[in-house]
């Protein structure tokens, strides 16, 4: 049962993209795979990368008010990148870096931020998988024990040790601590150090600096896709790349277990919808999960190949049918994500559900996959019967 992950616009094959992929795949394996009755190792994940066909700026975005905004660097090393992500996460979710202090107010939220902070530094899928397994235990413990007695006397030095100890359910005794503790302690340190006194302002300034360039790439990738998507007989390069990934995933199915799950982030949702309605309407998708996407908005604007201005006949009363090849469709949105939209008002038999990324405004758009609880929510939804 493969999962195809479709990235959205503004993704390029760089270190950040690969780290995001490793962390995401680790959490998909450990948290989402069991909801599909799969062992984590058995889950095949296919991630067609179409960013290479995205927009290129002939003058390197020289048109930006401040050309330096096109590139933002905290530093060349991965830890600097991770710390930058955490600075944004904390600043925009209204959380301080003092996770122990926060934990005494809201234990479960603090655990969530701790693991999100650890995820930001995950260097490999194996590390992310260990984090995901540990997160499931810790989140469950925090939910069941919102005020554990040890929290009152815990110190910044032993908070993570005590959490890990309390939540552990290992079947074996080990004569030392595992690497997961190092990852969590590093996360704690990252959270504490990512926000010095004036760092909130710094983080906000940083994303503002990036905003111009990000919007330019977002719109640019979308325009390139719309201009070059081609036709059913001669699909464009982005469609071809994605179709290859989807068909490869479809071909992986084993006898009696031929489910195909597609997770499409942002503009990836529009591409999948175009494929399901035009480019390959016969390619069966057992469950489509669109996340922070604009599928509904683009249909309102009639921008798909299959869009017809006379359908539905009496908008906004009528609905379009769900593409016949898509057996189930979950659409995840965050009201803070200005780029996410509902689908259910436009397409029938789509389950819209709200997920609070904890991020504000523009950053919420990329925040879904950085939150460990996102995966548990998706897994819970997948366990539910369709339509509930």
């Amino acid at each position, binding site marked *: 049962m493969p999962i195809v992950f479709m990235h959205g616009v503004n993704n390029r094959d760089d270190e950040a993209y690969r780290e995001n992929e490793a962390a995401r795949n680790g959490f998909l394996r450990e948290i989402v795979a069991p909801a599909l009755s799969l062992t984590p190792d058995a889950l095949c994940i296919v991630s067609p990368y179409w960013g290479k066909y995205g927009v290129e700026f002939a003058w390197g975005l020289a048109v930006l008010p401040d050309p330096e905004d096109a590139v933002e660097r905290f530093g060349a090393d991965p830890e600097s990148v991770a710390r930058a992500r955490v600075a944004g996460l904390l600043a925009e979710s209204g959380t301080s870096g003092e996770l122990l202090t926060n934990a005494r107010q809201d234990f479960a939220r603090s655990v969530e931020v701790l693991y999100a902070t650890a995820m930001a530094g995950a260097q490999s899928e194996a590390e992310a998988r260990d984090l995901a397994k540990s997160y499931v235990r810790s989140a469950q413990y925090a939910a069941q024990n919102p005020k554990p007695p040890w929290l009152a006397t815990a110190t910044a*030095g032993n908070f993570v*040790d005590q959490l890990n100890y309390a939540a552990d359910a290992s079947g074996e*005794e080990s*004569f*030392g601590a*595992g690497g997961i503790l190092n990852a969590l302690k*590093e996360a704690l340190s990252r959270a504490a150090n990512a926000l010095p006194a004036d760092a909130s302002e710094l983080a906000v300034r940083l994303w503002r600096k990036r905003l111009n360039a990000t919007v330019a790439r977002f719109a640019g990738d979308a325009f390139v896709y719309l201009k070059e998507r081609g036709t059913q007989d001669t699909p464009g390069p982005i469609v071809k790349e994605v179709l290859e990934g989807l068909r490869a995933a479809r071909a992986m199915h084993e006898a009696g277990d031929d489910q195909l799950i597609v997770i499409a982030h942002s503009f990836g949702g529009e591409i999948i919808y175009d494929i399901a309605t035009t480019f390959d309407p016969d390619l069966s998708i057992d469950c489509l999960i669109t996340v922070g996407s604009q599928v509904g908005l683009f249909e309102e604007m009639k921008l798909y190949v299959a869009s017809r201005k006379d359908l539905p006949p009496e908008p906004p009363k009528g609905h379009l049918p769900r593409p016949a090849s898509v057996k189930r469709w979950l659409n995840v949105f965050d009201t803070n994500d200005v780029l996410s939209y509902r689908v259910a008002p436009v397409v029938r038999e789509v389950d819209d559900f709200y997920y609070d990324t904890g991020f504000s405004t523009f950053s919420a758009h990329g925040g879904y996959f950085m939150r460990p609880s996102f995966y548990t929510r998706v897994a819970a939804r997948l366990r539910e019967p369709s339509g509930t």
Partner: protein
Amino acid sequence: MTLIYQNAAAAAQPGTHVLAIGVGRYPHLLGGAGETADRPLGLRQLESPPVSLKAVLDWFLRPSVVAGAVGFRNPSAPLASVEALVSNDNPFALEALPEIPAIDAATRNNIQEAFEAWLARLKSHPDHIGVFYFCGHGFMVANHSLLAEDFGHSNAQPWAHAFDMTNTIRALEREVSGSVFFFIDSCRGIAREVALTLGADPHALLVADLNKGVSRKSATAIYATGEGELAFAPKGGEVSRFTSALVCALSGYCGVRKPGAAAWTVDGEGLAMAVRLLLEFEARARASHRQVSDQTVQGSPVPLLQLAATPKVKVWLDLLPPERRALYELYLKSFTGARFAQSLLNQVFEVDVPRGFYEVGAQDPQGTLPAVAHLQEDLFPPVYVLTLEA
């Protein structure tokens, strides 16, 4: 007290001196009875070390109480002394020596004192053999450190109640003339917190005087796990994986015989290989938490054991496809004529046999189905694993 056995009669001749430590109770680590350390390194109470220590001590002491019992045997260097420390909440008792008084706790000071007493004995004869066994928590940065019971007692000196085993070994190699065997059953995970703390390195039990050359005849260090890795024990107070493999290897599952010699000898190299293979054998069906022993063997081979009996091999013989198992006899036929067999059972054939050359095969007692045979299999300790296909 710490000296639980001393053979005064053996004082003037080469002997084997054992120092064995098991630490399960850590009051300042997670779940302990004392104030939790500010930086406990994620470490908690352990149930296995006292039980593992008992297994090792009983193995060493049993033959000195019951003649012929499975355990330590070395006529060239008989058991001369056993020093032990244990940290455990429950009373500690040995089967081999049921009357011993309470054993001292494995605090850092007690370990230091016991080590110095053991070292003094070890240095009293140029052919003495030393055995150092530790089971408890450990961590690595540049060196491997082992944790005493009172680890975490001081938040100002958070790693003070541990000791640097790596440099202890280097120092010891320059102090003794005989041979030393180190069996270290602890984790070797990298402790990033320690690495990022200046002045945190635990001290060795003995300073290494580099003006002195290495004087020992041989030094064997067998670690429960590799650098950066963890060591494990089943929960519920059972002997650890490594100590199980060690005691098993020592109990007749390794050894070589010099040309013309009557006895089988077990030196560091043979023991190291046997422990590693037994750990792998035990882990063959395990998907996670693999544990691979790390080992260093230096110097000339000096036997720790001299055995009268031929070493044994654990045989694990299977037949595929599974539905054929109940139709076949699985057998091993020694070149000396001994035969071991399992007939018409739908299960793996597991048996211990003396080392040697065997014909190994499967045959249909009815003579209908085709036979399978490997005619000259070298069954070498400690394990022999084969799946036949019919």
